[in-house]
């Protein structure tokens, strides 16, 4: 039934589109309109309208859930379950609740999430850049083999290491219920970031290295003084991407932080809040308020630095972009 109605809608749109073009065509053939008007009316304008209509429809589909969440977060009382889009009156009661509630402690979760994300992204990017430099600018035997092996580890499905890592962190390192498993492994760098930064090191002219060495720098000095400052843009992009990823992650905190409330991150707090919504007596408007609070940093960061976000999305694939 629904499929039929949707189909009907598209058929109607198509009929309107082709009907319009046909009508223009007929008018043109009869000599009622001129060549230039025909091209404009019969070709350019309907195509424009169709293209922008599709794009606007998808934009609405993308924005509407966010808008709904924001508007719901301002509702209170019975209004939450009303089938209206806009709240009767904009109340801040949900935001006051999620930001000040002691049990939920969203502010602490927020600070925790950001503090866990900083070290792995900053240090991890630097260690990855180090490896990327060694694998692209230094000459030693077996360099490409090492790169191939490292690249191959990227293809190993994460599900294999999920449980043994958990056991190792629990039994050998004794890190369970502390944030260390979220921080320490990331600081050693990651192959994905290394692969991406290697691409940008490879694009750097070799003469720069030579010039640095003539000026008395060691290879390590070349990396620190020449290569790193020149590729600051991709490094920054990877840091932003990594930071956003670490901030948004909730599976690792769920696995390793468990129920230790003092270490909880904001995503984990929201997940716990949502999954125990009924028993804790919360309603969806409060969850939405918490979600909006959690989304703000990501979206602000994205709009401030969308060039880095979207640019690195392209080059991370290693394809020409």
């Amino acid at each position, binding site marked *: 039934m*629904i499929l039929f109605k949707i189909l009907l809608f598209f058929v109607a749109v198509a009929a309107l589109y082709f009907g319009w073009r046909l009508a223009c065509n007929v008018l043109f053939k009869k000599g009622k309109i001129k060549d230039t008007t025909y091209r404009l009316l019969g070709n350019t304008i309907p195509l424009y309208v169709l293209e922008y209509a599709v794009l606007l429809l998808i934009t609405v589909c993308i924005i509407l859930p966010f808008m709904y969440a924001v508007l719901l977060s301002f509702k209170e009382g019975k209004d939450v379950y009303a089938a209206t889009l806009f709240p009767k009156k904009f109340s801040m009661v949900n935001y006051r609740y999620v930001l000040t509630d002691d049990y939920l402690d969203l502010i602490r979760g927020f600070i925790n999430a950001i503090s866990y994300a900083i070290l792995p992204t900053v240090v991890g990017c630097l260690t990855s850049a180090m490896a990327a430099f060694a694998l692209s600018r230094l000459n030693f035997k077996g360099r490409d083999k090492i790169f191939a092996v490292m690249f191959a580890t990227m293809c190993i499905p994460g599900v294999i290491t999920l*449980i043994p890592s958990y056991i190792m962190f629990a039994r050998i390192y004794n890190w369970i219920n502390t944030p260390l498993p979220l921080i320490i492994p990331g600081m050693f760098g990651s192959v994905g970031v290394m692969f991406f930064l290697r691409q940008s090191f490879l694009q750097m002219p070799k003469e720069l290295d030579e010039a640095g060495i003539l000026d008395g720098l060691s290879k390590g000095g070349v990396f620190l003084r020449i290569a790193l400052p020149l590729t600051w843009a991709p490094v920054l992009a990877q840091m932003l991407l990594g930071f956003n990823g670490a901030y948004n992650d909730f599976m690792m905190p769920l696995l390793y932080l468990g129920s230790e409330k003092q270490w909880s991150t904001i995503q984990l707090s929201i997940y716990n809040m*949502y999954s125990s919504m009924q028993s804790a007596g919360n309603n969806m408007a409060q969850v939405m308020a918490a979600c909006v609070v959690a989304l703000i940093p990501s979206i602000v960061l994205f709009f401030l630095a969308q060039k880095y976000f979207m640019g690195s999305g392209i080059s991370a694939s290693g394809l020409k972009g």
Partner: protein
Amino acid sequence: MQEAKLKKRKNEDIFWAVVLLAPLTLAILLFVAVPILYSIYLSFTKYDMFNPPQWRGLDNYRRLFNFSMETQFWRSFKNILIFAPLMTLLGITVGLLLANLLTKVKKGSGVFKVIFYIPVVCSVVATSCIWAWMYNDVYGPMSILFKALGIQDYNFFAPRNVIASMLFMCLWSGFGIQMLLYFAALRNIPDQLYDAAKIDGASALRTFFYVTFPMVSPTTFYLLLTGLIGNLQAYSQFLAIGLDGYTPVLVVYSYAGHGYGNNTYGYSCAMGIFYGLFVGVIAVLNFRLSKHWVGYDII
């Protein structure tokens, strides 16, 4: 003199290579290689985290392949076999079509690109909560929309509808990546190819299938590969929206997260290894098949 200098330089390179590569190599050894070997060992044992592992041979694998006993894993396996290919194909199709549309539009393609990319940077927990409300069977906007369209009592999380609901949600939150990569690839196609097609009198559809599609085949291959690997291991959206145990990774994980004290760690390692091998085989197959349809020489 010259030779000694060259040798010194070579030694210096080796020294710096060791220093610079040390952290990442250590990371791979400690957090990838050792866990895998450990997991292979544990999958042959019975282990409960308190007592040392006891060797049990193939017991765990026998239990996994005992279809009458192990139903949870195979049910999730069936779910993901429907979800992952559909999700990958949907993402690629929508991404390619939209990117194609965006390259045609003269004004505002940058703005649309940014808007379509927003859900990608958002946290899975928050978007899943939003969609859990959208899909709520009484108050959710989607239910209200369906009612307006004449469909009563449509439960988005009923077993027969849940895959469609999740597909739509994941498409909403993920197609920005595919669109972005295709957009970049489409911009790289030289105009002469389109001019040639025009001179030959090719229709728009034929131009798409004979010019555009072959030219972006490396991107398609990349998206197919990463999409399949990622979607076969999808879990966070499912867990956050409240479908615990719906995908294989969640089943594997449930034996570590909730199975504390049970004798299930060896078993979950066996499951993880089996499923990881399955994903790996799919990835290798993808590489093998790519020779027949991906044109690397043209880009």
